């Protein structure tokens, strides 16, 4: 079972997000990037599958700040190979990224065909989760999204895929391979890899690079405006001794006709 995992960086929302001077995008100066959480789950799912059924895992990403650390971490966790697509001029919309990946994959030496392509089913800058289905469409292979578990016996040409629905209902699907899966959560939380292991991986392993193909796709979507949420009302904090606060609560309730 040979699996390709696609990972990407997204804005880290621990830091304050600022709107850039164009009023349409995030301010890159103040931005800090972090690996997309669901992509981390996609990697974990691929590693679990490899441990269970054998085969190989290749992790791939489009060049972006700090991506090398993410790819080396993937190697340290057990990924067999890391590939970075270089030279794609940012910014890339999701559909542009999907088109570039679809076109570059056949050019990556000794990669294709793979049995499964796993990536996050969603990212905080791709709430519609478009990357995986667009990629599947471009590659003309099946897609299943919001996946929470995968199993596949080698040589069967198909995988069993699990999805969770509301009310504790679990769906089990059979999908022919190759296929693209959008991972919501791996069967187990992403593993921890000791920092020393990442550091030694950085010394002993390399990341393969592949040049980005020329872009001929222009996005059909245009961002008109980006603004911070505006506060429309504020909570009133009641302060004072417990007796004073209790009295203020009583006043508020009676003023609103609730008691």
């Amino acid at each position, binding site marked *: 079972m040979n699996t390709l995992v696609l990972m990407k960086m997204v804005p880290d929302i*621990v*830091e*304050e997000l600022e709107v850039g001077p164009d009023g349409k995008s995030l301010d890159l100066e103040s931005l800090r990037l*972090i690996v997309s959480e669901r992509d981390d789950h996609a990697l974990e799912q691929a590693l679990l599958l490899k441990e269970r059924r054998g085969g190989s895992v290749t992790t791939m990403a489009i060049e972006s700040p*700090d991506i090398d*650390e993410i790819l*080396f971490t993937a190697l340290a966790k057990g990924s067999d190979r890391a590939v970075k697509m270089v030279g794609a001029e940012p910014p890339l919309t999701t559909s542009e990224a999907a088109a570039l990946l679809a076109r570059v994959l056949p050019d990556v030496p000794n990669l294709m065909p793979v049995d499964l392509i796993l990536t996050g089913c969603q990212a905080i800058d791709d709430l519609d989760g478009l990357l995986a289905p667009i990629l599947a469409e471009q590659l003309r292979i099946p897609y299943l999204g919001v996946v929470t578990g995968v199993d596949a016996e080698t040589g069967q040409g198909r995988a069993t895929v699990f999805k969770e629905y509301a009310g504790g209902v679990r769906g089990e699907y059979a999908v022919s391979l190759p296929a693209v899966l959008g991972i919501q959560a791996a069967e*187990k*939380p992403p*593993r*921890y890899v*000791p*920092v*020393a*292991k*990442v*550091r030694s991986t*950085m*010394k002993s392993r390399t990341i393969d690079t592949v040049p980005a193909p020329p872009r001929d796709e222009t996005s059909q979507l245009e961002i008109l405006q980006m603004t911070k949420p505006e506060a429309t009302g504020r909570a009133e904090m009641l302060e004072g001794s417990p007796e004073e606060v209790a009295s203020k609560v009583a006043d508020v309730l009676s003023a609103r006709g609730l008691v």
Partner: protein
Amino acid sequence: MALTTTEPAEAATEITLDNLLESPQGRNLLTCIQCGVCAGTCPYGDVMDYPPRRIIGMLRAGLIEDVLVSDSLLHCVACYACMAKCPRGLRLTEVLLPLVKEQVFSRLPEIPAELQKALTNTLRYGNPMGESARKRAAWAKTAGVPIRVLSEDPRPVDVLWFVECYTSFHPRGQDNSRATAKILHALGVDFAILGNEEKCAGECARLVGEAGLFETLMDYHMALLHKYKFSRIITSGAHAYDAFKYEYPSLGFDHSVEHTTPFLAGRLDSLRPLLTRKLGYTVTYHDSCCLGRHNGFYEEPRRLLKAIPGVKLVEMPHNRINSVCCGGGGGGMWLDTYFKAKGRERLADRRVKEAVGTGADVLAISCPYEVSRFEDSLKVLGYDKRMVVRDVVELLAEAMEGAP
């Protein structure tokens, strides 16, 4: 934090578990008389499969692998009790346990989720709680006294104050920092902080077995400290104190370092006239493992407390070398859920029961981990109306009524 591929500077003879028994420290371990005092004094000795005595026995018998694949040593809260009581003077908590724990950590099939989050956060944000590194010095604006940040004003300074994580981000830890700033300012100390450039000193990463994370943090701080000129370092973190005193020197760190509590005790003559407000508290003091058993600072915090007008100091049965760990050391700070799942008593609960038993109304501490650990325990056990937790510096600042 960016990981680098540079080799951390290593001591000429790096001790590993493989060559331990060939080193002087390791040969010393062979003199263990298997008396079991270590297991008897260990706060989790009754539930550990491999307390220090058995680890040494397994090491001698060539069966250490059994210890390494067990998660028994995750119970070790690095409280230095075994080391302090060992009749052979073996450096258990300093040498043997970190080496074994590093191997245990690397073999764990799964890192407990709470601990994993803390370690991931420490690598990425420089603090275990995952707060923005850009807000590390935000508390300084609420201190009420001017605080120089070296990145903004890099002139040489006498005292570089390494604030540490809980004292920078935790709301109650910030009370400690505001109090410390107020006292330093009132004493006329020429001090500055690293501000947002500071990260976790990393001692708990090392003692939970994540040595690579600790080395990354050490490398970072060694490069950072080279940028500035200062005469000495003080730190609010008892664990940071240990890191700077015992581990950073292996990378060439040669600055004088003091924890804020002994630092202030050394300036008690100047401080005493400022302590004008009578507090009227009965206080019991909890000796932190790092300051107490590991470094022998038993009297300094007590001298400070006794100098406060209206403070009556009472002792818990387990005090000084016999103090019971709050459970936060060696990564225990982020293993509460793991211990709970194992059905273990939270060590902070055990300690708080003893503190309440003294009849004191204030539990005084001087390690920033203890505020949240003991306050949580007071609430869980229903004692939060009878006792409050205060850092020694908070009590000092409270007694400085009228001082700037």
